[in-house]
């Protein structure tokens, strides 16, 4: 005779509760980030000018060029060129690509030697598509390794406000 009718069920209930707690705990643990794991950070989106510059430079990749990970960006006003110091290697080929999403903008990229004299090389210009921005590139193959300068100039613009720009370069 069983004086304690609930007793046989008690272990089953306890096991069930434990199992439920385990499952729930696992579910919670899966929702939380594991220490040391990559946080779900928002991707760093490139600016529109960088996007256009990289898209343009991408054309040179098909020709064996490698694009550097860096970028030079800022704003340009007509009649006030801006300059970046770079270090180039003799015998290597370079393309410096500048882009701006500014409407009606026209850019010019020029590479100068250490003394500030413009280098002879190739020039390329294009529009950036529907937005009416500008893309421009200068290709050089320096004969000497050393210090050079890259100048970016806003030749024309529709809006009086300073135009945003981005410059990237590719080498091979």
């Amino acid at each position, binding site marked *: 005779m069983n004086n304690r009718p609930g007793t046989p069920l008690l272990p089953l209930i306890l096991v069930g509760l434990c199992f439920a707690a385990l499952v729930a705990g696992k579910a919670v643990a899966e929702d939380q980030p594991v220490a*040391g*794991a*990559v*946080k779900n*950070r928002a991707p760093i989106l490139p600016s529109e000018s960088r996007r256009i510059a990289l898209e343009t430079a991408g054309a040179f990749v098909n020709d064996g060029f*490698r*694009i*550097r*990970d*860096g*970028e*030079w960006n800022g704003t340009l006003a007509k009649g006030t*060129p*801006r*300059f*970046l*110091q*770079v*270090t*180039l*290697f*003799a*015998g*290597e080929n370079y393309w410096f690509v500048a882009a701006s999403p500014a409407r009606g903008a026209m850019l010019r990229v*020029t590479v*100068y030697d*250490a*003394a*500030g*004299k*413009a280098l002879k090389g190739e020039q390329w210009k294009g529009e950036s598509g529907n937005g009416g921005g500008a893309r421009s590139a200068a290709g050089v193959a320096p004969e*000497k*390794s*050393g*210090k050079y*300068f890259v*100048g970016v100039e806003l030749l024309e613009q529709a809006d009086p406000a300073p135009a945003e720009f981005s*410059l990237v*370069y590719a*080498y*091979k």
Partner: protein
Amino acid sequence: MVTGRHFAIPALLLTLFLCLPARGATPAIPPMTEAQRGEAVFLDAMSIPCPGEVFVALNKVCRPNWATLVTPATAPVTTHRAQLALAVGVLAANGYIAVEAQDGQQVRNVGREIMSVAKALGVSQSLLGRGNSLMEFAENNAWEALADELEATENEVKATMVEQKDRDLVCLTSAAAWLRGLEIASGVVLATESLQGIEVIRQPELASKLAAQLGALPPRLKGGAQVALTREALESVASLLKANGLSQQESRNALQKIHDECSVVVKSILTSATALGTPAPAASPSASPAPSPASKTTGTNSSASVTK
């Protein structure tokens, strides 16, 4: 009878002839002024060439046997943040060498070591994805993607340093990467009979600029042994690279000196704080490099071989 019409037609043609060249010619680009040169922007990620660029240039003038230049990737065990920042630069350059040698195992080792140093610097959180990409590309022998990923990894370490108010560490990483690249490049050039490729590495202005950047660091960073050694080496390298009109033998001697000074600095950067002058062990057991038959001890690449 000669009329005014007879004169008008040649005059018009002459005018057109004189005007056409002026319209078709590209307007002359004026030279930069001294002020413009002085105010030119100097950006770490654009103005300092990455080691990959140096190696691409070297590949054009001579054909280095990259497999003999691969070195074991060992990070120093230290808490000195300046040394760790320098180590990131050296390791990144080692990664490029492994990529040129198409040595997937070494690339993986370098990736692990960079992660290890980044962890010690407290900048590893955002880099885990990069580390995984390096491993994946190495598995798939995607060498160009690996070179891009190495540069991106180095830049991400620098960006995180900036985010964490450690902007000063960035120039240490760049300087160390450049010196390690110069050590390798000078070794490669020395291994040729006619110093092929010496023009590629002639960058005295950059050496001076990097030395000046290190000189402008706050005293807490500038005072470290490795930082002081790196700065001294950069200053010495700058003056040696500036020398012009040297004979072949004098050039070789100067280049050997450059190579030796770079080797000393690189060895010092990779030496653990506790090792007191002996080569550093790996930062963690998992980061131990796999023995490579082609590997040599860091800083002893003066006999770098060149495939002719």
